[in-house]
Every structure is written in structure tokens, then in C-alpha cells.
């Protein structure tokens, strides 16, 4: 699963890099005198992009030994999407507001792969980035939001159990972003830039606490009590690899 995530991210990254490469190749192209080129079309000057859309894949490192129920190792892979708006950019520094939605899932290594864990997070935060070089933007960001996790245990005897919990979380992260220069990719269009980034961070949150109940109870059956499953740490370190398009 994690390998597939990274493959997907690298595909995206490769696409971005290829796009940049094509742009460079286009700069060496010389038009014929009879062909109207883009350069000849009077256009508005390119303004720095303010809106960004991201796709990312991340790996969380769970310290809690309870990970064994939901994953074969301590790394749980996931991914997500984010949107950012740069609302303040004096000079080399930029401050952006961002919202992100992320998810992770795994199947348990403990009991022959019949445990499924899913978690999703919705958060909002701020990102401060600095242009230290034309293509290089280190940044720090903080995000806060709510995480919801669900554990499904299939085939507990004749029963399938489901347990879920929701907690508030806060994440601090720092990363390095490699950005292409903004460019118009079609006539009359907005200037676009692409970037790839790597990031590391740590999330603080209370533990998930799960109460399991039957996934489905036939109508008219005797009501079944819930079962305490125990807790799973939500606080954890993560690494993230992502791509973004900037408008």
C-alpha cells in the first residue's frame, strides 16, 4: 500500500518535472516569420500565483504497540489533498491559509489481514514560506482539525465489529518546496506554476478510544452490548511528499 502511494506521488512529481522540462524546451523554439507566436500576443504581465492545490502522500510512524492490530509495521501510509491561498506576500516571505483533507488506511497484520483501519482528517492552518532561491521555498506550517478513525474487525466468530472515534489534533510541520516559474500554458489562460515538496512534522492529539459494536444487527435481534476495544495513539510523527499546482 505504502509503495503504491509513493509510486503515485512520484508519478505526479515526474509529471510536474516533465512539464517544467517541456517549458524549458519551448523556450529554445524559434518561430517562423509567418507564424504568430505567444510572445507576439500582447498579454497582461504574469502575476505571482496565489491559489495552490496539492496532492500528497504521507507516512505516519505509530509508536503505540497497538499498531500491530491495524498494521503489519509501525508505518501507516495515507494521502490527501490541500488548498492554499497566499494572502500576504511582502517580499520573499509569504503567508498562506490552507485547508487539507487527509486519510490513511491499512489492514491489520495481526490477525491474518482481517482487521481494517481507516482514518480521515479535516484541518485548517497557516503556512509561512520563504523564497531563498528562485526555485526553492522552505516553509513551516501549523494545522489543526479533527481526525476520525474507524476499525473494522471481520469475522469475530460470526460477528463483524466496527468501532470509531473522533479527536481534535494539531500538527506542526516544516518542509522544502521546489517550484517552477509561473507560466501561461494556453492562450488566454492563467499562469501556472508547479511544485514538489517534502515535509516532516509531528501531530499532537489525544488517543483514539474505540467502542466496538456489531456492523449490522438484524431487525428484531436481541440488542448487543458494545465492547471496549482499547486505545490507539493519534499523536505521531509523519513524513510527506507532495505535488502542487499554483494558479
Amino acid at each position, binding site marked *: 500500500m505504502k509503495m503504491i502511494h509513493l509510486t503515485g506521488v512520484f508519478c505526479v512529481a515526474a509529471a510536474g518535472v516533465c512539464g517544467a522540462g517541456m*517549458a524549458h524546451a519551448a523556450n529554445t523554439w524559434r518561430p517562423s516569420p509567418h507564424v504568430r507566436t505567444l510572445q507576439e500576443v500582447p498579454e497582461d504581465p504574469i502575476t505571482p500565483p496565489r491559489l495552490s492545490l496539492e496532492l500528497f502522500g504521507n507516512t505516519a510512524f505509530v509508536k503505540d504497540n497497538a499498531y500491530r492490530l491495524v498494521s503489519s509495521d509501525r508505518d501507516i501510509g495515507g494521502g490527501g489533498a490541500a488548498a492554499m491561498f497566499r494572502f500576504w506576500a511582502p517580499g520573499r516571505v509569504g503567508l498562506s491559509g490552507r485547508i487539507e483533507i487527509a486519510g490513511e488506511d491499512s489492514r491489520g497484520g495481526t490477525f491474518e489481514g482481517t482487521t481494517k483501519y481507516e482514518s480521515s482528517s479535516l484541518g485548517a492552518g497557516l503556512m509561512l514560506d520563504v523564497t531563498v532561491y528562485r526555485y526553492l521555498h522552505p516553509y513551516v506550517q501549523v494545522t489543526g482539525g479533527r481526525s476520525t478513525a474507524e476499525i*473494522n*474487525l471481520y*469475522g469475530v*466468530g460470526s460477528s463483524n465489529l466496527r468501532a470509531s472515534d473522533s479527536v481534535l489534533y494539531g500538527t506542526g510541520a516544516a518542509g522544502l518546496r521546489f517550484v517552477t516559474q509561473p507560466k501561461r500554458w494556453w492562450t488566454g489562460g492563467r499562469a*501556472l506554476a508547479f511544485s514538489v515538496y517534502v515535509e516532516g512534522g509531528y501531530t499532537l492529539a489525544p488517543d483514539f478510544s474505540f467502542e466496538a459494536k456489531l456492523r449490522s444487527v438484524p431487525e428484531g435481534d436481541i440488542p448487543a*452490548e458494545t465492547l471496549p476495544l482499547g486505545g*490507539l495513539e493519534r499523536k505521531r510523527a509523519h513524513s510527506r511528499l507532495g505535488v502542487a499546482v499554483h494558479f
Partner: protein
Amino acid sequence: MKPGGLTRRHVLTAFALLGAAHVGACGGDFDTSDESQGWGARSDLKAVPLDSALAFVDATHGTAFMVDAHLGTPHARPIEVGHTVAKYEKRNGKDELLVLSRGLVGTRDVKDEPPALWVLPAAGGVPVKVPLDARYTSFAQSADGTFVMLFFAETNAKAGEVAFNPNQMALVNLSTPTIAPRTLTVPSLGGVPTAIDFSPVLALKQPRPLVLVRSKNYVTLLDLLHGQAENREEISIPLTLPEDGRTLFPVQVEWDVVGPGVFIRVSGGSDIFSVRFAPLDEAATAVAKNDFRAVLSQLAAGTSPSSMVLYNAGEGTRLLVAGADKALFVIDPVSSRTVQIPIEHEVGWLSVWTPVAGPGAGEPTPQALLLPSKASKATFVDLLKLESLKTRNLEVVNLTAPATGLSPFPAQGLAVLQHMDRSLTVLDLAARTVSPIRSDVGIGGLRASGATPSTLYMLTPSERLGLLTLVPGRLGVSDIRLDAPATEVLVTPAALEPDMVSRLLVVHADNGGYVTVMNAATPTRETAKSIRGFVATDLLSRTERNVP
């Protein structure tokens, strides 16, 4: 490629593909149809009724579960015990579970775990762990649950280590503040133990209980005080002569407290073995290193005795033996005199009881019920003056079909017989009447409880739990619809419940654990609650243990 050739459509298509790739990478929701089996390769969960809770043991992962019904709500409490659970059963006389875990033999990837005997209280006390010196495979306990003897049962005596002595045992006294097993070795006559019996306190020179170790073709008597108060030696008693080619397995033991002595019934032979404990004087005691001498004799009791029981009807202790012969044998253990009484059928089950004395009635005398496995009959035997009155003390009643099982309820004055067609017959032991109980679905098992002495619970393969009211002359049958067939029943005494309400706990066959709880006095579906899949209780907290 010309710059102008890359259109908005191309860019959007590229993002759509990337998005699709990401969603695929994240996995999405997967089909759960292949997930319905095998959550934890777990051996069958067998319920053990304790007093206030049902005990279950997940032998694979070494976890016991106590399921109680405090305030009417089922609740499961996991207790971690050692891995490789070999045997577990209720501790006699206590609301506790005894669990023998053999631990794990360490390898490169597996941490060594020593064997242990666990004492798990049902009511939430602290479990007691008694470390053991060998990976024993079985145990036996005394009638009051004070002593536990651990041994290598012949049937599955594999310790998983380089070598072990199958005649080594460990005696645990659970009444001492610091529990330390005492290792002893049984003198072997070529065999290994098959079972162990604890005696009551015998009228020896120094009254005390003994332990009898059964082995193929011999038995061994051990002194519980051996090695502590006095240095007494074990006594091995061969049941066959060296030239005897028979293979005899002791299958039943009856202790004569007053004699004192013990009677041993064997499979593979037709004799009953009598071992009398003759006292020794001081000088002989010092030489024999014991204060009694075992005197073996063989008692003739037909061709294939299937059951024996000691009774005393005012004329001294007698041994009643029955079996494949159409005869009943009454043996005087002192003189070895045998009286043979002809009866109409062979005997598959033999039950002796003393009726409850009624007001104004005289002293009740012991009675016996003889039940054949092939004939549709039952014979009542009045044991008073049986040796002299013989057949005049017999009364035969006809049944609708041969019995396949007998459940006596002497306190209620009833006995319930099971038949091949899974119907029942209720015998009134006083009036000696026969009341058939029919069943459309078939009654697979019967359960009784001291907390509801007048109710017999009938386990059926349907979702209905049958209730038979055991009042002589007024037998009532009813049932309750549940959601799954019942396999075990426990009724908790009201005194053990915080709200002083007795609860009925019904176990359903499910390796994930499935129990339904009702009010025992008025069990109804409407007020029932269930707990399903309780082997997952606190699973996240227990994961470290469960995943080596």
C-alpha cells in the same frame, strides 16, 4: 511540442489522471466479502460455568474471558494467562478458574515463556500465577480445590523440550500464603499416569487424604504429606501379574473412608480390585516408611462391570456393581462375599441416592436406579436388606425407548432420561412413574443449576431454549426464543449479584464469544441483552501480548 498545443483540456485531463492514480493508491473501500472468515485462527471457545460468571479461554492467544451479568448487562473481562493453554476447569468449591498454560519453548524468533498454573477469580480479584518447573499437560484437583496435582497425561504427553520425565508431577497447595509447587516423581512400572484421584480424609492411623495415580496395569498411592510432615514412600500396586498379557486401564475409583480402602474398576478386565489399607505398628512403619500396608484383592463382579458405587444401608458398607450381565452384584468389602441378584436387563447407568426425608416419615433408606442401554426398561432397587430380600427389592418400569443418558435430581425426587430420538423421560423416583417429554427439534443436552433447582434447561439445535419445571406431578414445559442455539447455561445465585437478582446466562456457539443474559426468574426475550464478539474486548491494549 508547441506551447500553444497544450490546452486547458490537456491540463485538466492530466490532473484527473493524477487524481485517479492517487485514489487508487489510497486503496479506497475494499470488498469485505473475503473478510468474513478467520479473524484470529482460534481454537474453539468452550464455556466453563463458574458461580458468578462464565469463563472462556482463548487457548491460542492465552487469554481468559470472564463474562458476568452484573445488573443485567453482559460484560466481558479479559485476563491474560500464558500461551498454549493445555487444560482449564472450575476450581472445586471456589468461584475461580484453574488454567494450565504450558508457555512457549523459545526459539530464535520466539521468546521463551515458562509454564504456569493460573488461578483466576470470577469476581475480579487478582489472578494468581504459580510458576511450574515443567510443561505439564494436565492436572487434577482435590474435592475442595485445595490441592492441585499437575502431571503429564499419557494421551498428550509432549513437553516440546529436549527431554522430560513423564512420571514427574507437581503438587500445589493453594491454601498456603506462598504457593510453591512440590515436585515428586512417581515410581514407574513401565507406564505413565493416565489420571489422578484425590481421596477424602481416610480413617488411617493418622487420618489424612491420599492420592491415587492411575497408570496402565498399575496404580500408585501417594501421600499428600509426603516430604513434609513425614517421609512416606509412594506405594505402587500392580494390577496384573508379569505373565499376564492383559492391558488394564483403571477407569473408576471409589474410596472407602472407613475401611479404609479403595475399589478400582478397570477396562480390559472383569474384576473389581480392592485395596485395603492395613495399619502398621511403629516398627513396621519405620521399615515400610508408611503407616499402612496396601492389601490387594480381586472381587468377582460379573463379566464386564460398567459401574460401581459404595453405599451403606445400615448393614455396613457395600459395593454395588452392575454391567453387561443381567445381574446385580452386592459385595461386602470386608469379607469379599458377593451376592448376585438377577435382573431383567444389563446396566448402562447406575445411580444411588437417599430420598429426602418427609415430615413424619421414617429414616429414608438408600435407593438405586439401574438403567440399561439397550432395553426399554428401568429398575428401581431398594437397598435396605438387599442381600437377603434380593429380587423382592426390585421394581421394573417400562420406558418408551432405551435411554442414552441419565441425569438424576434426587433433591427434586426426579431423574431425567434422554433417548436416541432426543426426547426425554422423567422418572418420579418416589412414585416410580414415567412421564415422557416429546420434542420436535430434539433435545441435545440438559443443564441444571443450584440457583434454580426446580428448573431444567433443555439445549436444542433450534434458537429456542427449553425450560422443564421439575416438580413431581406437575411437570411444566416452556421455551424462550433466542437468536442462536444455546450450548451452555449458567444461572448466577442472587446472593452473588449486586442487585440480588439471579441471572440466566446462555452461551451460543461462536468462536468470537456470544452470550445472552436474562432475568433467571422471568426469562423473556424482551428483557434480554447479548454480548457478541467479546474476544475482541480490549484487543488494542492486548495486542502486544497477542502478537509475539
